[in-house]
């Protein structure tokens, strides 16, 4: 996808002022080296895996670069999904009905979220969830299209540790786990006791720094890795 063109087009097509502004401020240059890019790690939690059926319950983000993770600028929102909270997602995220009772609707935090992401490259672990849920929710609330390029630490890990399945030698071999916690372990990153969108965003930022330190070149262009 040509993100530059997409952002330009959208800056004309979007009707919501804040979103227009977001697109107008442009997207990270595809040829910028990783070491010079302002990034933001993003994690959302949802009531399930299907963006058509389920909703977002929380959003966490941490701005960072390869030099520093800016914990002091981290943000976290609880949002009330329009679809009811399923019991099994409570056990995963430790978010309960009462936590969400007073939470705002996504539409109330959207502008703040846009501002936090504006001009920065988003990093996520398994980006499809973030992309699909945010796109679906924004279309549903505002009838707008919202997409942006992302670095996916899970994809990076998969490229490093997973051999293509078409090789017969790989058919019966156990695949290396690329789940966030397991991937972190490979880089001696500490285990966090709790899980929520913000801690997972922090965990993702740390993981990307480790992946770059070990396997990528900090001079690699962003466009080589984003999706």
């Amino acid at each position, binding site marked *: 996808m040509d993100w530059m063109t997409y952002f330009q087009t959208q800056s004309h097509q979007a009707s919501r002022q804040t979103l227009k502004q977001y697109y107008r401020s442009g997207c990270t240059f595809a040829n910028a080296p990783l070491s010079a890019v302002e990034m933001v790690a993003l994690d959302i939690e949802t009531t399930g895996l299907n963006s058509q059926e389920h909703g977002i319950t929380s959003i*966490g983000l941490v701005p960072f670069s390869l030099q*520093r993770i800016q914990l002091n600028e981290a943000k976290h929102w609880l949002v009330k999904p329009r679809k009811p909270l399923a019991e099994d997602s409570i056990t995963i995220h430790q978010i309960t009905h009462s936590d969400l009772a007073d939470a705002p609707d996504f539409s109330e935090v959207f502008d703040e979220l846009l501002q936090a992401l504006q001009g920065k490259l988003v990093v996520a672990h398994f980006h499809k969830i973030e992309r699909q849920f945010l796109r679906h929710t924004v279309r549903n609330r505002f009838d707008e299209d919202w997409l942006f390029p992302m670095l996916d630490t899970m994809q990076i890990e998969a490229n490093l540790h997973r051999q293509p399945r078409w090789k017969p030698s790989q058919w019966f071999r156990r695949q290396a786990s690329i789940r966030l916690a397991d991937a972190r372990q490979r880089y*001696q990153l500490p285990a*966090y*006791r*709790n899980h929520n969108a*913000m*801690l997972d965003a922090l965990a993702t930022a740390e993981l990307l720094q480790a992946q770059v*330190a*070990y396997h990528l070149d900090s001079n690699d262009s962003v466009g080589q890795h984003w999706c």
Partner: protein
Amino acid sequence: MLMTPEQLEIAQYIGQFEPFDAISDDAIELIAQHLQVRYFKAGSAIINFEEPATDLMFIRSGAVELFRRNGELYNRLTEGDIFGQFSLLRQQCVRFPARALEDCLIYYIPKTVFEQLLEEEAFADFVEAEGPRLKTTVEQQRKDNDLLITRVRKLVRRRPLIVDEDTTIQQASQQLIEHGASSMLVRRQASKGYEEDNQTWQICGLITEHDFVSRVIAQGESALAPVANIMSREMIGIASDESVQEAMLIMLKHNIHHLPVFRKRRPLGIIRLADIVRYETQSSLYLAASIANQQSIAELAKLSHDVAQSCVRMVQDGANSKMVGQALSGIGRAFMQRIIELTEADLGKPPVPYCYMVLGSMARDEQTLLTDQDNALILHDDYQPEHEAYFVELSDKVSTALDRCGYTLCSGDIMASNPQWRKTLSQWQATFADWIANPNPEALLHCSIFFDIDGVYGDINMAEELREFVAERAQGQQRFLAALARNALNRTPPLGLFRTFVLEKDGKENNSINVKRRGTAPLVDVIRVHALAAGSTAQNSFDRLDDIAKTSLIPKDAIERLRYAFEFLSMMRIRHQVIDIDNERQPDNNVEPELVNSSDRHTLKDAFGVLSSAQKYLEFRYPYKVR
């Protein structure tokens, strides 16, 4: 501002470690809210020399090595440790560059936050450079315990038995039997007193077993009469924070055997004269006194088992290293004196006067539990070769007896039983004069303990004379002092502790550290050189430091640092010997890093640092040139 979940997780993590465990919640929150993070792959540089210092760094995971400017390893740190504080405090550029030894996650605490944290006393004390922390630790240990004052409350074993004043004599005696007690207190309601069962009570009397005999049976008092009839109404008590000494004096003065202990007006318990006697018999003074009363070597050998217990007791009572060293040396001298007395009684009068002297730690009053015997004989100048047989037998018997009493034979054969170490006073003076006038480090290596001497038995004046002779001769002898100084550099301290290892200067890791060989002994060596240069006749290292302080050989603050380092290392050695005894192991001089808590680790590193710089200074102050 409320902490976010990830700030909370980080705050909880940081809060487990020194000095963050002692600072306020507000300060921890401040840190969590301003933190930055970065990952470092093993082998990569974290900060470089002379980079501007902008943050305090906290190791969240992994391990870090710090280096000196010349590339020498300065320290190795791990999870929960901080670095970068020195440069921040001095507003300087980075002094110790750092490298990731393992994959690391580093938390950065910005300078502005660091400066706010300095307002917290616990934090400021911790990050202050070497000297102050060592001083604080040693002084805190002293403040926490005061040997001279053992409070009576320590002797209180259980709550007192208390009955109301209208209890019958029979009921009271039944309770006494039921509780296996030998005395009880009597209470009555009063307007002033202590609160219990929602009422105010006053202790109005004391009854002992003896009262039942002397006042009930002997005087025919009815068993159904109230206890008030037979109790002692003259209430003599003692406040719980008074000394054991004071309690003993009160009991002797009033001729009583039971003494109630009170805090404010509330009774805490009753101590008996027997409790005090038992307590005192564990004391080193008592032990030394009873050594003098033993009638045979076998009896003495039996008594030697009490030495360890009396040391444990002193440490528990909070004695400092000088007190423990003096007591154990005193006990050692008492053993020696009694052994020589008994042996002399066996062999008959000596043909010429002599002086048994001890060398090394006992002479310095710095003995610990693990010790061998180092002794020698000074014979009167009237000594003739035909007298030799007597002194051969005497010294053999003494050394063997000392060995039986726990003072093992000297592996270096520095004992009076070795003919080389039996000399007349003139011969000794000639020997010392030769050591001093024609020094060479190799020859001096094995006789440095001869410069710590103390007469123990016989004509003590001869030992005094020898001591003064040495002090006078050694002063100003640059070549001799330089040779001695060179030997004092042979044993160097490690850098500190890292996880469960001892970290050496070359980065190697060992499992345990011999605190004597790597700490106290080289300090003693360093102090001895300065003391001889100062013309001091003192033998104890603390006393020697006092004498050195009167000269301008070393800066005053360096003397203070040496004092604190020596005290800290000595106590660490003694405390670990006590741990060994508690665990029924043979005490040794080794300290295992896993038994050292985090605050002692930092102080230990400081103490090693003091020794290391003292050794460097020694090399500079007494330079050795090979002729």
